[in-house]
C-alpha cells in the first residue's frame, strides 16, 4: 500500500536510533586521537629509505641509481649521486646518494618507486600523521628524515620484509659463492703460474683456456 515503505523505513531508523544507545556493537566509530587501530599490513602512505645496521648513512641500501627518480610519475624525487664510491652491504663499492629528497606534498603514493627499485632500498611507510605548520619545508623530506631501519620495516610490513630479507640473503650467498669461485680461480691461476715459473718456461702468462 502507499506509504508502507515509508513506515518501514521510519521503523528501521527508529530501531537504529534507540539501538545505538543500547548495543555498543552497532557503533563502528573509532574516536581517532584517543583510540587507534593498528594500520593494515598492506597500508601505504609515503615512501621511505631502508638502511641496515645501526648507522643510517653507512647502512643505506640506496646506490643512487636514480631509476625511481626517472620513473616517479609526479616527479617528486630528487637524487644527487656521489662522486666517490663506498662499499655496500655486499662489500662491493657503490655510489650513494648525497641528496635524496621526496616532496610528500607532490607524492601520490603510487608505489612505483618501490616496484622499480632493484636494491630493495625504498619501501612504503604507514606513518600518516605528517601534518606540519610549514607547508613547503615541512613536507620536503630529506634523506635523513627518510632513512628508517630494516627493523622498522619489519615492524610495519612483517611478511613483505621477511621476503625481502630472504631474497637479499640469497643474493648475498650467490655473491659469496661467486667471489669464492673467483678467489679459487685466481688461486689456481697463481699456483699454475708459479708451477710454470718453476719449470722455467719463459715468463709469459699462459693463454686463456689452456
Amino acid at each position, binding site marked *: *500500500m*502507499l*506509504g508502507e515503505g*515509508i513506515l518501514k*523505513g*521510519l521503523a*528501521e*531508523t*527508529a530501531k*537504529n*536510533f534507540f*539501538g*545505538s*544507545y543500547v548495543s555498543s556493537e*552497532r*557503533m*563502528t*566509530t573509532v*574516536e581517532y586521537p584517543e583510540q587507534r587501530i593498528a594500520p593494515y599490513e598492506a597500508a601505504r602512505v609515503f615512501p621511505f629509505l631502508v638502511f641496515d645496521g645501526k648507522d643510517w648513512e653507512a647502512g643505506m641500501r640506496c646506490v643512487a641509481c636514480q631509476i625511481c627518480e626517472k620513473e616517479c610519475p609526479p616527479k617528486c624525487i630528487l637524487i644527487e649521486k656521489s662522486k666517490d664510491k663506498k662499499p655496500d652491504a655486499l662489500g662491493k663499492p657503490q655510489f650513494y646518494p648525497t641528496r635524496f629528497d621526496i616532496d610528500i606534498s607532490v607524492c601520490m603514493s603510487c608505489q612505483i618507486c618501490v616496484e622499480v627499485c632493484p636494491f630493495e632500498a625504498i619501501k612504503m611507510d604507514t606513518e600518516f600523521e605528517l601534518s606540519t605548520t610549514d607547508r613547503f619545508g615541512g613536507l620536503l623530506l630529506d634523506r635523513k628524515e627518510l632513512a628508517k631501519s630494516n627493523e622498522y620495516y619489519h615492524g610495519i610490513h612483517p611478511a613483505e620484509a621477511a621476503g625481502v630479507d630472504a631474497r637479499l640473503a640469497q643474493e648475498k650467498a650467490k655473491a659469496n659463492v661467486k667471489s669464492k669461485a673467483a678467489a679459487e680461480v685466481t688461486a689456481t691461476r697463481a699456483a699454475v703460474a708459479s708451477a710454470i715459473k718453476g719449470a722455467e718456461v719463459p715468463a709469459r702468462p699462459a693463454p686463456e683456456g689452456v
Partner: protein
Amino acid sequence: MSTTLFTVTADQFFVLLQHWVVSFLPGSWQPVAATVVSSAAIVLLFPILFALTTVFERKGLARIQNRLGPNRVGPFGILQPMADGIKSLTKEDIVPTTADAAVHFLAPVLLVVAVFMGFAVLPMGRNMVLVDMDAGLLFYFAMGASTELSVFMAGWSSRNKYSLLGAMRAVAQMISYEVPLLLSAVTVVMITGSLSLTKIVAAQDQYSYGLPHWYIFTPWGFAAFVLYAISTTAETNRSPFDLPEGESELVAGYHTEYSGFKFALFFLAEYVAMFSISGLGTTLFLGGWSAPFAFLSWVPSWIWFFSKLMMSIFVFIWLRGTLPRLRQDQLMNFAWKFVLPLCLLNLLVAALWRFMGDGWLRWVVCSAILVLAYVGMGLIGMRSKRLGPRSYRYAE
C-alpha cells in the same frame, strides 16, 4: 487553595513576569513596552532553540546512522553551536562584484524578519500571545508567503545562474506546496468558525472522558494533519523535499553566493521557519497549549506547547534521517496530483463532518471516504510505477 495558586502562577509565570517588568514604566508607555518585552523574548528564545536544535539534529542523525555525532566541543558536543556561530561570524563576507548589493543584503534580513513575524500570532501558552488578531491565521500565511520573495531576491541579486535556477526551483516548490498547506489549514477554520488562533486553541481545550478534543483525533483532522505535515516539510525545504538546497548533489541553490553571517541568517531562517510552522501545526491540530489528558491540566500550558513543538522537530529530524530526496518532477507530481486532490476532498469531508451532527455515523462516513480515497489514489498512482527490486542491464 495554595496548590491552585501555585499552578496558576506557574502557568502564567511569563505573563506575570512581563507585567512586573512593564510596571516600572509610566502608564502611557506600558502597552508599547509590553510588546517590546514580548518581542525581545521571542527573538531571543528561538535562536537559542535553533542553536540547540542544530546540535541535537546532528546527534540524532548520527545515532540513526549508528554514529556518535559531534562530541568534541564541550561536554557531549553541546557547545558545538557556539563554535559554529563564532565561525560564521568571523568568516569573510563575500559579495559578488556584479551582484545587486542592496538586494543581496536585504534578502536574508527580510527572510529572517518575515519568519519571525509569524510568531506574533502564535499562542504559546494560556494568555501568551503577542498580538491576539482576529485574522491571525491569515496574517501567519501572509507572512509565510513573503519568505518566497526573499528567496527569489537572494537568487536574483546574486547574478549567478546557479543561484537563479536554485531560487526558481525553490520558489516553484514553495508555491506548489503553499496551496495544500492553506487548504489543509482551512478545514480547521471551517470547523472552528474563526481565523483567530487563540479561538482555535480554545475550541480544542475541552475534554470528554478525560480525553482532549484535538482536531487530530477526528478523521478530517488526521488527514489534514498528515497533509499539513507533508506541505510544511516541503515549505521549509526539509528532507525529503530539500531540493532547493540539496547539499549532497547540487551547488547550494539560492544561497550559493552567500557566505559568513548572511549564510548563517538563511540557515537560522530555515530553522526558525520550522519552529514557527510546527507551532502553527500544534495550534491547529494538536490542541496548542492544552494538556493531552484532563488530569494533566495542572502542568503549565507553555510546557505543553513547547514539548509538542519539540516533538514535531524530532519528527522532522527523524524523517530527514529516513527518506531519500525526491526528484523535481516527483515533487511537483506529488504536490499537484496527490496532495492537492486529497486536500480538496478533505474540505468536503470537513463540511460533511460539520453538518452531519453528533453521533457515530459521521465517524464512519468521513473515515470511509478518506481511506477509500487514499487507497484508491495510491493504487492509481502506483500502478504505472513498476515498484520492486531493481534490475540492472549492464552492472552485475
